[in-house]
């Protein structure tokens, strides 16, 4: 079975749960940015959590399948159409060979996911099917989709091979795509290099997500943040926001020159010369991926213990999808 891409959408890529283990040479973890929505698309399509899905950003693809197929769409709210007829999101959809799937405009959020029973069967590269476009690694030929691409689909799973039975996802379990969001962060790394007031500003101001937001990172606008002046150490660069180039935690927040904080996401550059001052906790990384430009964002400080508790809570939510 295969998917024929008629129109690719704005930045549609193949993603799975990512590619850990190569960050030490600059290859990021990758994987679906809104990992929970991607997992839901898989569950609804009758897959396990690990199959590769299509990540659609703002504007989705138009495609047909060359055989009967089962798909599901989860994530940011969007009109789903099969042969021009509206079909529900958050549900298993049966397609006949030749049916044409298309999408309307987003009504909120940024990304949605198309799960296909059997998963998108591109080659596994370094342990993952995720697309890392900057390095042209993985996914479909290492790039975002183009018109004319033919994507192979793997053999369908059944309950015996780990496929989910769920055909719908009740509203209470679906993530929300709000215009205001509170994101929990753990201060640390180089937070001692901000003035006390600077750190307070970061953790109390309302930040607005700018359009400069992609799989690498998201930039926010808001007040300026003050760094403590100092004589820079050898090799660190001249600005007080500079450090000797170091590894970047995924989810870490840097504030080059004290302006416009950047939060690194799943295709993070693995290192660089800007001091990080806090890190978004793992449980809240999906919240960033769901944010549309203009989203008002609060960064609220938590402790490591609270971050671990939130992580356990997130696991519970996840297990309900598969229950």
């Amino acid at each position, binding site marked *: 079975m295969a998917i024929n891409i008629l129109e690719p959408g704005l930045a549609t890529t193949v993603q799975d749960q990512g590619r*850990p*283990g*190569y*960050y*030490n*040479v*600059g*290859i990021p973890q990758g994987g679906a940015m809104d990992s929970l929505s991607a997992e839901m698309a898989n569950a609804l399509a009758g897959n396990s959590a690990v199959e590769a899905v299509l990540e659609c950003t703002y504007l989705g693809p138009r495609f047909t399948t060359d055989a009967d197929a089962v798909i599901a769409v989860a994530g940011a709210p969007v009109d789903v159409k099969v042969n021009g007829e509206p079909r529900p999101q958050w549900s298993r959809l049966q397609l006949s060979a030749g049916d044409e799937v298309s999408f309307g405009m987003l009504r909120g959020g940024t990304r949605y996911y198309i799960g296909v029973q059997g998963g998108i069967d591109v080659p596994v*590269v*370094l342990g993952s099917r995720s697309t*890392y476009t*900057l*390095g*042209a*690694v993985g996914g479909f030929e*290492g790039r975002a989709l183009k018109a004319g691409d033919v994507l192979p689909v793997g053999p369908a799973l059944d309950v015996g091979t780990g496929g989910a039975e769920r055909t719908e996802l009740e509203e209470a379990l679906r993530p929300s795509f709000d215009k205001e969001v509170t994101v929990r*962060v*753990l201060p*640390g*790394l180089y937070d001692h290099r901000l003035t006390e007031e600077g750190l307070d500003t970061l953790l109390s101001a309302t930040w607005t997500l700018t359009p400069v937001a992609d799989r690498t990172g998201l930039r926010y606008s808001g007040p300026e943040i003050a760094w403590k002046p100092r004589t820079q*150490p*050898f*090799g*660190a*660069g*001249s600005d007080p926001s500079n*450090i*000797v*180039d*170091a*590894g*970047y*935690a*995924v*989810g*870490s927040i840097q504030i080059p020159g004290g302006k416009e904080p950047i939060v690194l996401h799943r295709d993070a*550059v*693995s*290192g*660089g*010369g800007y001091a*990080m001052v806090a*890190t*978004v*906790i*793992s*449980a809240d990384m999906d919240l960033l991926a769901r944010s549309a430009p203009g989203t008002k964002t609060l960064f609220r400080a938590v402790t*490591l213990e609270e*971050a*671990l508790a939130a*992580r356990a809570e997130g*696991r519970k939510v996840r297990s309900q999808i598969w229950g």
Partner: protein
Amino acid sequence: MTDTAVQRTDARYTWGGDEFLFVEIAEAMSLAANYKANAMAALLTARGLTGVSDICPANASLLLRFNPDILPPDRLEAEVRGVEDEVAHSSHQTLDTRIIEVPVWYDDPYTRETGARFRKGHQKPDGTDLDFAAEENGLDSPAEFIRRHHESPWLVSMVGFVAGLPFMFQIVPQKDQLEVPKYLSPRTDTPALTVGHGGCFACIYSVRGAGGYQMFGIAAAPIFDPAQRLDDFRDFMIFFRPGDIVKFRPVEEAEYRDIQAQVDAGTYTYRHAPVVFDLQRALDDPAAYNLDLLERLHGH
């Protein structure tokens, strides 16, 4: 800060959320701090801790990614502190690594053309990046800067930013380090394989893209080969590893073209040889030590 061997002072431990532990070994760049980062990474890799997915040594720090559901943060920290202690107390501060010869066409037309497109807002709008670098280091000419650049070998102090990009630190006393500020405003374009420089670090851009380092030349052969066509990439698509030692060799256009032809034919391999990097010798007498390293490269 002066160059000294690994000090028995504690590094700074701090968390990057619930999945990353960051260990700042020193605020300033030095061979000793980088050695410690690489030595700790090597020991941690050898221990094969369950629950640690990424061990990323950097210039003067170490970043670890872990799964706190498998390895609780306090246990991870205790393990890493144990390794730090072990490195600080080891009497032989050596790393098994290799020395690699990297042919570079300095002052090539590709980076010169790209540089010309981004003169506006550059520190030296009416010259080249090489003119600027020579001036910044008080050298008579770009040619003198190029000579200094390839004369002494460099240690790969970190691999990253993007896939396979090596940061390199020259094995010379701090007073002889070539230092050049980055572009004031980053470029939106850099040719793949550009040999760049920012602060005290050299780099080779593994892929085409944005960049802020000054551009001095272009490496003749790939350092990142996702298709794994060349022999040097048979095991892995990325060539450089932290701890590698690099000797740049200047080539002119004819040899550059010849190497390119070998790359196209799939026959090119890098000249390299195994070496043991000895921190104390590198610090005590870099000039003599570098000669020794180069002897290994050129065979015996």
